[in-house]
């Protein structure tokens, strides 16, 4: 999709980024991203993709906004406590960048909707707080051959795993079963989830726009307690129940 004059003005400062330019912007403009939940992590991620000029965002997020969401869920507004999160985040994104098409699904990822939602997207970002939802995204992305950027955080740490089916390990290669000890409630400072989100957003932007070096086969790990950043080599599990038969 060729850029308009408005696009050139709006994205002028990033068109100067080496390797990105107009062709990168055009690719972004033609892309749809699915984000599984737009909370402390998915919210800033959606914000950054909207700022960068992604064509369309599909966001799955259920429930009503709670006061204790607001230390991290930056797409929401204080006045919207008690109202559906989907409405609050859609209003913020549309006001921020009307050029971006925003489709908000007031549901979380389930067995019933995962295939249909992944089919809408060129790339998927996993930001749900439950492994059940992340595993569904992973399975569907592998089935449909779509890249998945799995972004996660806990307390002061973050992990970002870019997954390209057939080329990198999938989430199930690393974790062959639902981790028993993960709990829905986790410690979080909004700046940490936003950091994980923006690293994930950048990996996705590079993948879509075709520039830079995506951290394939390397999980990005950081710990803001010490500001230690690391890339960890990861590998496919030849017996993976999800991706063992997938090859490029």
């Amino acid at each position, binding site marked *: 999709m060729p850029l308009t004059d408005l696009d050139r003005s709006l994205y002028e400062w990033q068109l100067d980024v080496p390797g990105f330019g107009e062709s990168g912007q055009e690719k972004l403009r033609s892309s749809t991203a699915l984000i599984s939940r737009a909370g402390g992590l998915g919210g800033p991620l959606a914000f950054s993709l909207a700022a960068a000029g992604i064509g369309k965002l599909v966001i799955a997020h259920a429930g009503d906004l709670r006061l204790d969401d607001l230390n991290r869920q930056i797409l929401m507004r204080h006045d919207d406590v008690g109202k559906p999160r989907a409405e609050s985040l859609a209003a913020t994104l549309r006001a921020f960048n009307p050029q971006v098409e925003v489709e908000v699904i007031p549901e979380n990822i389930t067995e019933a909707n995962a295939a249909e939602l992944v089919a809408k997207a060129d790339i998927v970002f996993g930001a749900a707080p439950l492994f059940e939802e992340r595993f569904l995204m992973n399975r569907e992305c592998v089935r449909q051959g779509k890249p998945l950027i799995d*972004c*996660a955080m*806990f307390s002061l740490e973050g992990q970002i795993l870019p997954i390209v089916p057939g080329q990198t390990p999938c989430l199930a290669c690393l974790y062959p079963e639902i981790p028993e000890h993960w709990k829905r409630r986790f410690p979080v400072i909004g700046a940490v989830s936003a950091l994980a989100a923006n690293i994930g957003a950048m990996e996705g932007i590079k993948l879509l726009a075709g520039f830079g070096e995506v951290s394939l086969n390397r*999980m990005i790990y950081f710990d803001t307690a010490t500001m*230690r950043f690391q890339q*960890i080599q990861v590998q496919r599990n030849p017996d993976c129940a999800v991706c063992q038969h997938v090859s490029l």
Partner: protein
Amino acid sequence: MEKRTSFRRLLRHTFRLPVGLVLRMMPLMGQVNFSYTGQLAAAAGVAEVVLDFSDDAVPLRRVLDELASRHGSKWGELIFDDAGQVRSTLLVIFDGAQVSGDKEDLTLDGVKSVMLMTPIAGG
């Protein structure tokens, strides 16, 4: 018991550091740096320990057993499943690279750093 004696000792002062503070020291010959992420660090009360071995090819399993006895049951539950096996979801990183295969059979032959990671999904 013979095997236990080759696992000499944990450096005690590393255990008094609060979570998040990392003892910055270059492991000496025979020393292996163990670091924990997320829930493991929270359960242990430390994010990093340095272990001193007199034997090169120490089985990881034996070290995990020893660490579990020192860090307590909460830490041990994150590492071992109900059958007493190392959890399939535990990521074991040797010198910056994930190790595949049966975690029960790994040895620390020539390994300088071991990172133990539990899965996280905060969003």
